[in-house]
């Protein structure tokens, strides 16, 4: 009796582990996919393309070319960015840093996440609306020469994150010849820090494109082109490429990522399948041994006049019970496993000073499909012992006795 209970318990545990690992692995896969996809499709990115010079020496992103892009009928707006080298000076500290000189509408197309302060496009409106006292007042004229610094830049300059907004900082822009500067033209500016960008890992600064023009830049490095309609993207790409520009589209990356995650899921499914096969074999063994142990009972039921359906469901139900309990156990194991992993990640994130991210995503469809598949597999596994039970000849049992 004890060995029967132990066998039942171990078979159940194997089924639960198989179900739990399937949900765990797939949730992990979906979680990674969700994180990556969300990063990519922020700020309406699917209705935008980016254009750069295919050969900067031949095709330059000049004002004339930008006007041609703007005149494409399907285009709603065009924002530009010029990548420059430069230097930021704060007190006795000097930091070499990349600069992005961007048009005002660039911010509405890019997905910049501020950790403090405001975007230049918000300054004009904020001066006429009531403000929270904790936010430092930024002079509206600051929009003329402003700086948006990454968090890492703020730290590298030794500035205090809490009162950097509103400070005036000197910076120098260097315009390379490819952008129209003659022999790396340099120009010094003084600008007010209006915001900080949530990026603790990279040093960079955003400034107004007026600064780049003032420093002698005649061409841009990159255009962000927003389509009136997402479906027009292929047409716009064709027209932009005909102008000699190279385009890139987040949808291409998404497609590649989908392909990658499809392979990823197949690999995870492979691992899960190994667990499922082991669980099925365990369940099959338990049910078959159970039939052997109960063959006299099956024989008795048949002699008494039990119909075949009763005998069949006696074993089929046992396998379904394995399936149901295995599924419930699997769900519990999944949540335990998830809690352990998330707890470890939380500890790690706290130590590194990073934000905690949920790397699991468990869509309801995954649970439903797993439940259905578990019951189906359990039923199919029980089918063979159940059919064998039907074929038990009670007379053979008697003769043996």
């Amino acid at each position, binding site marked *: 009796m004890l060995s029967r209970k132990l066998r039942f318990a171990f078979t159940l545990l194997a089924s639960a582990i198989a179900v739990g690992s399937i949900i765990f692995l797939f949730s992990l896969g979906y979680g990674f996919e969700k994180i990556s996809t969300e990063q990519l499709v922020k700020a309406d990115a699917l209705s935008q393309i980016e254009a750069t010079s295919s050969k900067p020496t031949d095709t330059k992103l000049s004002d004339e070319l930008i006007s041609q892009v703007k005149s494409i009928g399907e285009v709603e707006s065009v924002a530009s960015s010029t990548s420059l080298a430069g230097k930021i000076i704060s007190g006795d500290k000097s930091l070499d840093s990349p600069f992005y000189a961007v048009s005002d509408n660039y911010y509405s197309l890019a997905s910049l996440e501020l950790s403090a302060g405001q975007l230049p496009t918000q300054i004009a409106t904020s001066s006429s609306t009531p403000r929270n006292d904790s936010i430092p007042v930024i002079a509206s004229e600051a929009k003329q020469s402003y700086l948006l610094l990454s968090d890492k830049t703020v730290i590298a300059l030794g500035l205090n994150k809490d009162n950097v907004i509103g400070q005036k900082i000197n910076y120098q822009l260097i315009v390379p010849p490819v952008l129209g500067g003659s022999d790396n033209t340099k120009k010094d500016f003084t600008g007010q820090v209006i915001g900080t960008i949530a990026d603790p890992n990279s040093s960079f600064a955003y400034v107004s494109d007026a600064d780049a023009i003032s420093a002698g830049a005649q061409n841009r490095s990159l255009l962000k082109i927003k389509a009136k309609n997402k479906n027009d993207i292929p047409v716009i790409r064709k027209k932009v490429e005909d102008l000699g520009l190279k385009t890139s589209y987040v949808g291409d990356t998404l497609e590649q990522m989908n392909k990658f995650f499809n392979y990823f899921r197949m690999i995870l499914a492979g691992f899960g399948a190994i667990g499922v096969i082991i669980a099925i074999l365990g369940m099959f063994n338990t049910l078959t041994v159970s039939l052997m142990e109960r063959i006299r*009972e099956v024989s008795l039921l048949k002699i008494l006049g039990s119909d075949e359906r009763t005998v069949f469901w006696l074993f089929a139900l046992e396998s379904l019970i394995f399936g149901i309990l295995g599924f419930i156990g699997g769900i519990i194991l999944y949540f335990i496993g998830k809690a352990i992993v998330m707890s470890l990640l939380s500890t790690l994130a706290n130590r590194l000073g990073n934000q905690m991210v949920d790397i699991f995503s468990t869509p309801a469809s995954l649970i439903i499909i797993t439940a259905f598949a578990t019951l189906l597999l359990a039923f199919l596994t029980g089918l063979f012992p159940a059919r064998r039970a039907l074929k038990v000849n009670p007379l053979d049992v008697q003769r043996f006795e």
Partner: protein
Amino acid sequence: MPIIEIHNLYKTFKLPKREVEVLRGINLEIKEGEFVLIFGPSGCGKTTLLNIILGLEVPTKGRVKIKGKYLEHLDSKERAKFRLKNFSSVYQNSIWLKSLNVLENIALPLYLDGLGEAEAKQKAKQALSAVKMEEFINSRPNELSSGEQQRIGVARAIVDDAEIIIADEPTGNLDSKAGHDLMRTLDHFHKIGKTILLVTHNLSYLAHADTKIAMKDGQIIGKFHENALPHKIKEELEDGN
């Protein structure tokens, strides 16, 4: 009026390398309420004959008519239902559902017949009382002695009030006292009108039956009503042994 009619019954078992003819032209009529004892040497076909009557085995040739119904007209599902309604059986080794107690095991045929739990248990208690085993109501059958188990087996056989009781060597594993107790129990059910078909090796039970049938090599070699074994049949049984 015959409750069981068997005409020209043959049964052949096909083995991988040969065929074994177990029953060869059996003709038999058993009247309602009759106590019939079948005896003969091992392998003469007694148990096969019982199994064909129960519908557990299909004859190779011949007809079996029970309560006016030909068994060959019933499929396996209908035969199972027919068996449930009309037969009760007791075997040399009683088989039990280990997870059920004595009362529940006795009530099993009633559960299979779709009776409610309360009514089934009430009838099971009455059957248990008929074999004087009330004290074991909550025991597990496997905890009881062979004799006690056989009496519980009889209780299960009579619980659904089936008309025909089939008993295949029910005293085979019992000592003489327990065997005689069991035979007295069968006598009791014979007296209240049950038809009893008993297969045994033990000729000391001849007196319990109305009709005695001797079998040898798949055939009926004699049928008699006396309580002693006729000389002619005795000689024939001994011939070749």
